[in-house]
């Protein structure tokens, strides 16, 4: 049966030149930009002067520090997953049930957007300045001395604040789509509000919880910048450890092995999400997630409580970013607080090459990433061809691997002729496209699952080839996913650092790398000014894209506008 299916799939593939061409080109790209670098990496990690060896792996597993780092990573990711999901749920409940006015909703969305579009380190640095022994909050406001801003809890707090918007964006449509009528019905049947919340609302949101938890878990697992600054000495995690192993101990093999250890939980989470949770989310996306009248199923005092709690968290976030803005307009943060535009002058003169390079790379990567995501997503969701599942898994590899490792793998794989790409812009663009397009792929798959296949079948039965059907029928339907994928590639091109720090070169550099450099020079002002610039640009582009999506008026546009940021 299976072989007959495979044979017929192969026959169909050979009869359809457009499909055959697309599949062949994609496999070539995936082989070149995903499989080949990973293979180079494995060869380095497991060979010793040409012989295969497991010694580095066994050595790492035997090292108690590394085992502790592995366990710590899981604990941190689990904590961030739980806290972030709770916070996301709080925000989602407030947005959908508390009956807030349109303006308040916009403000809420803006506050949750900030952490998603910021360059790395921003919240971490703000936490150090706020909660250190002489921090604004811990010392100046609360009068506490002798407290430490470093360790497990501050790392967990920073990551929760950074990543909870993913949970919010995942949960909000799900809760919004839980028909209030259900709650209303339970209410009119005499159920208490608390009972309705427990027995109707929460159970319906469970798949959303699971999904949000797994997304946050994965994000925390791959984060290396936050622990680098906040984890302190007694709490080490794997991604940071791998980075230090390579850049500090000059031990490339060890670093590669540590990253491979990281790959195990990352892959487990991905598979769980794909095959378990993915099948349980049946909420129909309606796109009607705007303002909602306050539900009767929520007591007025509960609505107020929700709104107040949410506002407190939102204010905390805004405070961190206000601090950043402040640091960008004073001479020397903490020492000389007189006002100056000097740092902005610096970034638009000395920093201009970095700004120019970053924008060029982001603008080239954008359409390519969008197109690639839509094409892969379409093939996976709609076409039958041999190796379809393999293609899906391979397309996720660069996304699941920690950035440091992807960066080094690219550097090794593409340095020597005939494929000498290092030093150019293409290698950075390729890194972004193949690392951050999986969002576009997933958005496309999700959208297509909501669109009836019969539309395309009608086109095919009327004699259109698969290329024509794709262009004329499917493409307009999945335009929102295209823009979502393109938006994510743009955001990451402006804000990511872990992989590309190894790919910047003498002729192509990036803003995020400049921010890191400024911080090592104690030039906090320009670092803050660069961060503010990045946030403003990304905010503008994301708002523009969202407006465009809303004007597309496809039923799915709202969902895609959210998945733009949903990771």
């Amino acid at each position, binding site marked *: 049966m299976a072989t007959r299916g495979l044979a017929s799939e192969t026959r169909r593939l050979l009869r359809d030149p457009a499909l055959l061409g697309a599949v062949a080109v994609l496999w070539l790209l995936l082989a070149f930009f995903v499989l080949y670098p990973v293979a180079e990496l494995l060869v380095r990690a497991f060979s010793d002067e040409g012989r295969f060896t497991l010694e580095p792996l066994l050595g790492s597993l035997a090292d108690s*520090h590394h085992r502790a780092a592995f366990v710590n990573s899981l604990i941190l990711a689990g904590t961030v997953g739980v806290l972030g999901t709770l916070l996301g749920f709080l925000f989602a409940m407030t947005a959908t049930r508390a009956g807030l006015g349109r303006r308040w909703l916009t403000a809420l969305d803006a506050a949750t957007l900030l952490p998603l579009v910021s360059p790395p380190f921003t919240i971490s640095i703000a936490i*150090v*300045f706020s909660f*250190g*022994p*002489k*921090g604004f909050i811990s010392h100046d406001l609360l009068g506490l001395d*002798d407290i*430490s*801003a*470093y360790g497990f809890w501050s790392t967990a707090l920073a990551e929760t604040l950074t990543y909870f918007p993913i949970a919010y964006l995942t949960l909000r449509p799900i809760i919004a789509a839980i028909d209030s009528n259900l709650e209303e019905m339970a209410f009119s049947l005499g159920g208490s509000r608390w009972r309705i919340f427990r027995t109707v609302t929460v159970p319906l949101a469970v798949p959303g919880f699971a999904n949000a938890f797994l997304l946050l878990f994965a994000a925390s697992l791959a984060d290396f910048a936050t622990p*680098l600054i906040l984890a*302190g*000495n*007694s709490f080490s995690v794997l991604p940071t450890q791998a980075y*230090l192993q*390579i*850049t*500090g*101990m*000059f031990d*490339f093999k060890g670093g590669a092995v540590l990253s491979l250890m990281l790959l195990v939980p990352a892959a487990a989470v991905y598979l769980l999400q794909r095959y378990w949770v993915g099948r349980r989310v049946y909420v129909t996306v309606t796109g009607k997630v705007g303002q909602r009248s306050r539900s009767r199923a929520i007591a007025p005092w509960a609505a107020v409580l929700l709104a107040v709690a949410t506002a407190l968290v939102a204010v905390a976030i805004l405070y961190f970013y206000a601090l950043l803005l402040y640091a960008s307009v004073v*001479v*020397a*943060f*903490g*020492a*000389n607080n007189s006002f100056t535009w000097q740092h902005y002058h610096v970034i638009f003169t000395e920093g201009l090459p970095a700004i*120019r390079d970053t924008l*060029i790379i982001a*603008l*080239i990567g954008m*359409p390519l990433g969008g197109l690639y995501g839509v094409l892969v997503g379409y093939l996976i969701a709609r076409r039958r061809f041999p190796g379809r599942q393999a293609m899906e898994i391979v397309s996720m590899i660069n996304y699941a691997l920690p950035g440091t490792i992807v960066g*080094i793998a690219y*550097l*090794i794989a593409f*340095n*020597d*002729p005939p494929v*000498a790409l*290092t*030093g*150019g*812009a293409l290698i950075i663009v390729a890194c972004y496209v193949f690392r951050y397009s999986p969002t576009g792929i997933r958005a496309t798959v999700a959208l297509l699952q909501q669109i009836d296949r019969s539309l395309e079948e009608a086109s095919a039965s009327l004699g259109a080839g698969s290329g024509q059907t794709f262009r004329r029928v499917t493409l307009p339907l999945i335009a929102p996913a295209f823009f979502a994928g393109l938006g994510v590639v743009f955001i990451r091109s402006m804000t990511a650092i872990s992989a590309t*720090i*190894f790919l*910047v*070169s*003498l*002729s192509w*550099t990036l803003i995020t790398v400049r921010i890191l*450099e400024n911080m*090592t*020079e*104690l*030039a*906090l002002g320009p670092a803050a000014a660069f961060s503010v610039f990045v946030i403003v640009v990304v905010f503008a582009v994301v708002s523009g894209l969202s407006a465009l999506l809303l004007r597309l008026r496809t039923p799915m546009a709202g969902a895609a506008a959210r998945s733009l940021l949903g990771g």
Partner: protein
Amino acid sequence: MKRRPFSLLAIAIWLAGLASAQAADPVNVYSIWPENYARPMFQEFEKATGIKVNFIRFSSGEALARVIAEKNNPRIDVLFGGPVETFAAGIKEGIFQPYKSPSFDKLPTRFKHADGQWTAIADDPLVFMTNAAFLKGKSLKAPASWDDLLDPAYKNQLQMADARTSGTAVTRIFSVLEVNKRDEEKTFAYLKKLRQNVQLYTKSGGGGTLPVGLGQAGGGIFFIVDALETKAKGYDVVISFPKEGIGSSAEAIALIKGAKNPEGGKKLIDFATSAAMQSKLSEHKVNFVPASPDVKTDPALAEVLKGANIFPIDDEYAGANRKRIVDRWVKEVLGPQ
């Protein structure tokens, strides 16, 4: 709408062309010195020779990882600045091309590799740096002995670098070893006691300077160049030296094996190791101590260093024991107590 991506691409290609067509035969460099120190030096070189320097700055570990990864097709000609031990690690990977500049013979032995794999361009002593307001608040004097840092008043108040990532930290640990006559038991007993007062081991050598400047930490041990930069930024910090002595690490330069522009690279090394460049350090307020015996140390810097007991770290001894000592430090000192 349809035409836009193409015009963007055209602009991109045009800009890329501009970037690559600028000058004939520039020297390509990875600098480990921060840009604000390296840039004026390269500008001086350009003025003197007409050769342009393309450079990008990386921390020592990142720079070395890149040079090793690029070994088969080097992208740069010269690795500039950074502690000697980074260069020692590079020799093992075979990434350097030995070269002896005209100034080579004049330099003391500790400022050069015997075969010319690297040459020192500057010296960088460690210092104690403390926050003035912190000292005043605790009625302390600036620490003048290694044992002063063990005072409970410093509990959870010190920041210094992590030996896994920072040359500053390795120099610090070898300083303690020298002070204790290379008695490792005594040294580690001290380091473990010091650990009680350490709030954070930072990834980079200068990582703790800003927290100390801002008062988030009371003090720490840093290279003088970073400490003086903190002061210059306007933060109220005090620099002091332990009476038992403290170590100093040389900053080096090396030619890359397989460099595309070896002649330009050699010229840059000639310039950097000569009095010509090092006499400009003081003018640009880069507070390294010149390696060349022909250059006078900046008067203000010399004033800070006056009376300080500074000794070089024996790089043969350090090179032979570095990995073992750092591993022991990670195991016994860094790990949870």
